[in-house]
């Protein structure tokens, strides 16, 4: 029931962000770049998606960041509810797959 409620409320922006994460754009800036949305839209939307348990965040291990001489990043990934909601959203927004395709992300 909760998933159905979330699905009904999901905006196009939120659906795009879910699609971007699903496609492998797993941190804020890459989602911004892919969706073309400004930071003031993307990050608050991700907070709400995380609150609704559609995505989950995790800090990158410090050792990996140190090896690449950069600060560690916070990565996001879809939860089971998030995947179900995204699946429902794809039916609602049929162009979502074409906007952000999985292949594009994997080629990066």
């Amino acid at each position, binding site marked *: 029931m909760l998933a159905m409620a979330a699905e009904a409320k999901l905006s196009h922006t939120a659906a795009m962000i879910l699609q971007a994460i699903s496609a492998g754009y797993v941190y*804020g*800036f890459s989602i*911004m770049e892919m969706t073309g949305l400004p*930071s*003031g839209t*993307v*990050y*608050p939307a991700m907070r709400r998606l995380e609150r609704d348990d559609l995505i989950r965040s995790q800090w990158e291990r410090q050792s990996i960041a140190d090896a690449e001489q*950069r*600060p560690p990043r916070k990565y996001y990934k879809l939860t089971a509810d998030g995947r179900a909601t995204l699946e429902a959203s794809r039916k609602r927004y049929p162009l979502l797959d074409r906007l952000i395709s999985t292949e594009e992300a994997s080629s990066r």
Partner: protein
Amino acid sequence: MKSPSEVAFSVLQRGLLSGAALLVPSCDRDEWRREWLAELWHVRRSCISIDETFSLDSQREITGFCLGAFPDALCVRNLSDRTSAPPAHMHGSAAQTLLWLFVILLLCLLVTSLLPGVQAENEAARFQIDRNVLLISEAAASRTKPSIPADLYRGWKKTPQRFFDNLAFYRVRRETADSGSARICWNVARATANLFPTLGLPLTHTAETGSDLSSIVLSHEAWMRSFGGDPRIAGRILRIGNASVRIAGVAPAGAWQLPGSPDVWLLEPDAQIATEVSAKTPGYLFAQLSARGQAARTSPGITISARDPENIDIDLSGTPLTEPVEGPWNLYEFALFLAFIALPAVSSVSLGETHLTSHRPSFKQSLRRFLFLGAKFALIAGIALFASFDLAYWYTPNYSPVAECVQLISCFLVCLTGFRWALADQRHRCPVCLRRVTNPATVGLASRTFLGWNGTEMICMGGHTLLHVPALPTSWFSDQRWLYLDSSWQFLFADTGIY
């Protein structure tokens, strides 16, 4: 090497993030800041060209990215506000009630510590005039009016006395004093130097005068009124009339009983009293009973037959000056005792322990319940003590019997109403979790009491109990009843925590 423009933009961008971070609740701030700084590092790397030449467009893009931190910070704040709202179980909980009572107690204590009148009452109770000191006055005259001529005092002082050890004398006159900054009109008592030792009152805030100037002793009231209770007042030089005098100390608040309402006592040697005060000038005479006098005394007051300097028989009376000052603690104990005695008259002392089911709270739950009630009573008793001080001495910085009376009455009333509230509050607290039961629902109709019952039902928000309170006590339903809810009810209550 970075150009100054780049440095300026970098500072601006970090400043924007720091400013936005202030909007984020402190518990989330570090992680939020860490994420945005990491993202900023990647944004910079992406936007700034490889040769690192300064580009205004790039910097504008990075700054735009940083401006997005503000909506994000506000979003985090809003989400945090919703999730950090006080949990339902805190409302009306035992801990919350005790916390409020404790805060009230602290506030009352704080106000009390700022009121000088409370110290004055303590002092008045501690330093009282020696009960063997009598005020000698003409039998026919009022003891509040001066009636003993100075000549009589001198005569008695010269002759050996069998019943009195010490004699002290003063007369009161209105005089103007100059404290250097202001001119004050005072009731100045020109007194013999042995006045305070005779009365058995030690001076407070004293200092060694060590000079030829006459000494004065301020009354507690004048000290508070004219010098704001300055503890370093001793040693200051004033002018009274045409003479300079030095303040030797302050009379304790217990001196309020001395007649004539003196503001200051100007202490003078006997020789000066003899030369400066005319023979007929009436004043107040104090006599300290000797051991023989104490043995001969059969009642608090005595009558004396004497002869005046013109050898005419006069009737004198000696009355003790000591009027009992109960002191704050004695009054408090008395008010507390009265409140406990009066409590059953204004409230039922029953805690409404009747249960509809055979379920009984465990020993631990019962103990916790009574400890909570005891803590409420203790905190209310403390509040009553300090609140009564505050009410009694709010307007006066000095001890007075009226303030003492206000203290007694207010302490009694606060205790009585407070204890009554504590019992009523206890009757509406779930025996399991000590929360107040809520959501009252009226059940039944008064016109159908014969077949059922009518009253109010309230439920514990933890889902432990249901309270039935009859609107009309009947022979079969006279007191409130608790119904313990089993676990099948729990799913209705999101919050099952206790306390």
